[in-house]
């Protein structure tokens, strides 16, 4: 975990410094220049933060779901600690992704919120996390709580394909790569990014994912200490 912590500090620092300080010019010649993207300009720098945070949200949800499934198979309470800790972190990242996204949307698309398919999806993900915590707080017995919240998160996970496939039919998309987009491409999926920008994007991506791993590890260790403390005080 020391390596992970060092990685987090280095990668995120580098990503922030590079992300903020590298100049944007119309015709980048040197490696240490970003292209100006018409319509995005300096706002394009948000891609180093918004996209990794949103991505980490999804990772956290999947990790929580996986540990929930492990709990149901093994009935080992350790997995429930991991599952709920991952959900807590996922909620924080989800919140950050929503904020960074709404700000970007305001200055690029013209409004904070437009119920674009991905905006709708992340809003529903926020609701799922909210419902998950509400359910947990409404059940007293630890084993029942672990079991039922794991089932709920798996059930919620089953709706994910509908947000990916069915939702874009119903609401128009503004995100790059949405159906109906003239180019049909996304900067992230097809990696339409120039040299250093791409490198910086990946540094940030790895950095934020490691940050999640490190925080999850800390959170689980705290939960374990609390668990053993409560065992001793009984």
């Amino acid at each position: 975990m020391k390596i992970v912590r060092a990685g987090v500090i280095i990668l995120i620092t580098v990503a922030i410094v590079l992300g903020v300080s590298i100049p944007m010019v119309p015709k980048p010649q040197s490696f240490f220049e970003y292209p100006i993207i018409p319509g995005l300009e300096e706002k394009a720098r948000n891609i180093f933060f918004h996209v990794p945070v949103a991505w980490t949200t999804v990772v956290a949800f999947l990790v929580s779901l996986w540990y929930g499934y492990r709990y149901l198979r093994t009935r080992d309470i350790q997995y429930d600690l991991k599952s709920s800790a991952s959900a807590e972190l996922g909620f924080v990242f989800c919140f950050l992704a929503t904020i960074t996204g709404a700000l970007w949307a305001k200055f690029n698309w013209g409004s904070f919120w437009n119920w674009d398919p991905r905006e709708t999806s992340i809003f529903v993900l926020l609701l799922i996390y909210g419902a998950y915590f509400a359910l947990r707080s409404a059940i007293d017995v630890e084993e029942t709580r672990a079991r039922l919240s794991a089932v709920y998160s798996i059930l919620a996970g089953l709706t994910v394909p509908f947000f990916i496939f069915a939702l874009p039919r119903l609401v128009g998309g503004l995100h790059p790569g949405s159906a109906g987009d003239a180019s049909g491409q996304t900067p992230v999926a097809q990696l339409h990014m120039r040299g250093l920008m791409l490198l910086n994007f990946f540094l940030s991506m790895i950095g934020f994912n490691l940050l999640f791993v490190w925080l999850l590890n800390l959170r689980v260790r705290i939960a374990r200490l609390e668990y053993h403390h409560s065992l001793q005080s009984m």
Partner: protein
Amino acid sequence: MKFQSTYALVMKDVRSELRTRYALNALLMFVVTSVTTVLFALRSDNPSAQLLAGMFWVVVFFTAMSGLSRIFVSEEERGTTLTLRLLTIPSVVFVGKLVVNCLLTLTLTAAVSVLYVWAFPGFAIVSWDVFIATVFLGSLGFASASTILAAIIAKANVRGSLYPVLAFPVLVPLLMTVMNATARALEGETIALAFGDLQVLVGYLLVMTAGSFLLFDYVWVE
């Protein structure tokens, strides 16, 4: 599959419901009051098909949330949950309760449909085939997602308010699709145009039914 046991469980619930009117009376009264409220809100205006279709499913959603959890909560309150668990396997309980929930939801959507057609001149259904297919598939989808949630909610302390909180995120894809398809039916689009929506509804129904069928064992056996 233990068809006999499932049938017996469904008949037990139907007879019990007809005798006590535990869920049915509350559901129907809820329908009447909420449709009246919508009527008050929209009477002076000339609401669009989109708006009416949306309000139709808003009424269905909140009414369902007020009543559908009863199928498991009532067992929990009477202390018969363990009796059922003793008598039969989880799959029988799930399928039986799913069937009962489908019957309740279909009754509910039928009642809302009749009231809407009667109360709102703007709610004129042009494509009956689209409307009936949408309401039918939507009701079954509703029931399939809410049955296992009802079983979860029966184990929690605060039941009434938690149910819609848990159900809404899971039902969002269904709600958006049925609202869209219902608006199409009001605007008179053919079933070929609405085919995509109906396909999504069938897909949702399959995924939710199979998913909760597999997950139910973990909810039911402590």
